[in-house]
């Protein structure tokens, strides 16, 4: 089968990170065209933070791993820039600091949920007893998000980057009303598992 590369202009990026109890974190990045068909797929080998990273990064560890280490690495592998990037894990929003296109968090819960969260909780929160509060806590707390709807999708954007929202809505255009932006994450998760099975045997 011919899988030669093509331009990603007009494409949409989907980034997710899944946590495996034994192996650590796996990142996956899928680039789709506007019809929802795949153009590129990239996934990482498992990432496991060292103990030193856990101690010294503290609550900033996940945004660092999801956004900077995994997210940025995967996006750099792609052929071009997507119109915008969707993620379904809040810490991956950190990647917005490293790219020039809008990044949104997709609320993947069922659409009939009346109201979603007003802020994003860290999905890898430790039990309270293990949390170390830092004096400079502003660095570790999840960013405040501004939520909005486009078509069937409920989307969140870092509040201080909300100026991106206009750009995002402009880029998504009419496509948003037709696209279910939560669906491609299912594909990525399956593909990551398949790639790992392929890798190990």
């Amino acid at each position: 089968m011919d899988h030669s590369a093509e331009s990603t202009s007009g494409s949409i990026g989907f980034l997710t990170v899944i946590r495996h109890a034994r192996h650590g974190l796996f990142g996956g990045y899928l680039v789709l065209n506007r019809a929802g068909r795949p153009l590129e797929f990239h996934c990482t080998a498992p990432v496991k933070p060292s103990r030193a990273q856990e101690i010294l990064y503290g609550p900033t560890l996940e945004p660092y791993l999801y956004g900077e280490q995994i997210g940025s690495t995967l996006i750099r592998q792609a052929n071009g820039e997507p119109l915008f990037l969707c993620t379904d894990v809040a810490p991956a929003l950190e990647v917005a600091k490293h790219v020039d296109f809008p990044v949104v968090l997709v609320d993947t819960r069922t659409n009939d949920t009346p109201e979603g969260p007003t802020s994003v909780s860290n999905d890898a929160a430790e039990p309270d007893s293990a949390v170390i509060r830092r004096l400079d806590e502003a660095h570790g707390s999840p960013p405040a998000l501004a939520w909005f709807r486009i078509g069937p999708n409920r989307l969140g954007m870092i509040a201080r980057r909300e100026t991106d929202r206009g750009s995002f809505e402009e880029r998504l255009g009419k496509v948003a009303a037709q696209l279910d932006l939560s669906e491609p994450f299912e594909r990525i998760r399956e593909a990551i598992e398949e790639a790992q099975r392929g890798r190990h045997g």
Partner: protein
Amino acid sequence: MSDSLRSDAVQKAWSWHAADDPIATTSDDPVVRVEPFSSGLSAALRRAPRIKVRPIRLVEERSRVVSMMLASPSLRVTSVRFAAAADAPVIRPLPSRDGAKPSFPADRSCSRRRTRLRVPRDTVKLEDRLFYMLQPPLESWMAGLALEVPFEPFAYQLEGIAFLYPRLAAILADEMGLGKTMQAITAIRLLLHAGEIRRVLLLCPKPLVGNWRREFGLWAPEIPLDIIEGNRARRGWQWRHDTMPVKIANYELLHRDDDLLTSAEMHVDLVVLDESQRIKNRSSRTARVAQKIPRTRSWALTGTPVENSAEDLVGIFEFLAPGHLSSQMKPRQMGRLAGDYVLRRTKDQVLSQLPPKLYRDADLELSPEQRESYRLAEDEGVLRLTHMGEAATIHHVLELILRLKQICNFDPATGHSAKLDRLCADLEEVAQSRQKAIVFSQWVETLKTLSRRLARFAPLEYHGKVSHRERSRVLREFEHDPNRSVLLMSYGTGSVGLNLQFASYVFLFDRWWNPAVEDQAINRAHRIGVTGPVTVTRFLSLATIEERIDQILTEKRELFETILSGTPGPRNLGLNRDEIFGLFQLRTPQTPNHRAA
């Protein structure tokens, strides 16, 4: 303190006590003479001290450093890039037409039902597996392409499309009436739109060419078709020129144009064989030519992949994946190996909303006249076969069977028929309720006799003696004329490919050798679109050859069910040579074995 000083002190103390206390006391003399002695201490005090110095370091020479590396090593990334699907298609959706059916509902793209492609187990390359796994659900895919569909497909039909799409070799073996045609057309349509295929060849029985043309017009109106027909020169031009992405041809052309079809430049991306039981005999000319067509993908459509024996499936696999199955395999092993290539669903499994199919077995006693004729014919025939001994062939036995079966229909001398009496009574009821009925027989002569005897019902005829042009008119009249409520149809021409779901009654006037064929006939009426239950009346003459055949065939259903485990098969399979001789308690002559029916 010196002794003299001490004495003074003691003396003073005593004085103080005497002054305070009037009681007189006696005292000793406290004066002691003190004389210093030489200890050498005074000299030591006059000597200069000696000082020892011990250095203590207050600053370490080198700090102890514990280094922790926080920068992570670069990540290992697996990357796959796919072909430019959107740039490649040879087909574009048609612009909206006036009165056109709506395209696949856009809101389905956001529904919770997501039908994803079923990746074949034999897809080895990770890149290829990921390509199929990462395709969108069919619901959003079709909505995104704005493809026009006459109605929304059932969930199981989307599953069928998701099964066919990624497969290089596949058998869609759904029970008749579940929409194999629509599933194949939609899978072809998506592949063409995706640019994954460009040349398709569809082979089907000749009477079904028109049906495929209609179905393509319904389910994929934007796909241009080329029906291969005409004289050899015209066909040669059609075969060689790629004016249309889909070519439709009948099986007979495999014989006539085999040199063109098997040449290397004929290579097609997909060959679809409809009613693929036509190639079950792998040594037949049809099968051999089909196997040689240069192609990338091979699909087979059939409701009966195992019609007579497991060998039938081996024959179809010789076209799909040569050598994958062999006749020596046990049914269970064959079923395991074929599993990922075959998709079979029955109506009971997937169409709980389809109205029921009600069977009525009309087990009838022959009329006295028929019984007498039957007895004479059987006695005479068996006697003749017995006298022939080893010279008796399968054809002699079959002749006798056919003779007896015809007597079960009508007494040749008087025309009496227990079946006809019963049929007339039933058709009265059908006509009164303004319903439609189809009557099947294996003989044209029987149908013609019925046509005369049932004249008051103004029956229509559809069989091999009716021209192809006339057949379309017959079907239209049967559907639309309220005064034409009975259609007399032969198994051979009416068992496949026709949609007669407006008929509520089916009568099997005589029984076919193979109930799979009967099922196909019944399912002309009992299929998608049927609005009420379909009543099937199966005539069977008691204590005759019909009853004996039925008993034998009933026992053979298990083979189908073993190979295609989990799906009920046709009710039975064909008869072999021993079984046919055994119908008359005759010993099979020692001649080479042949499959009989």
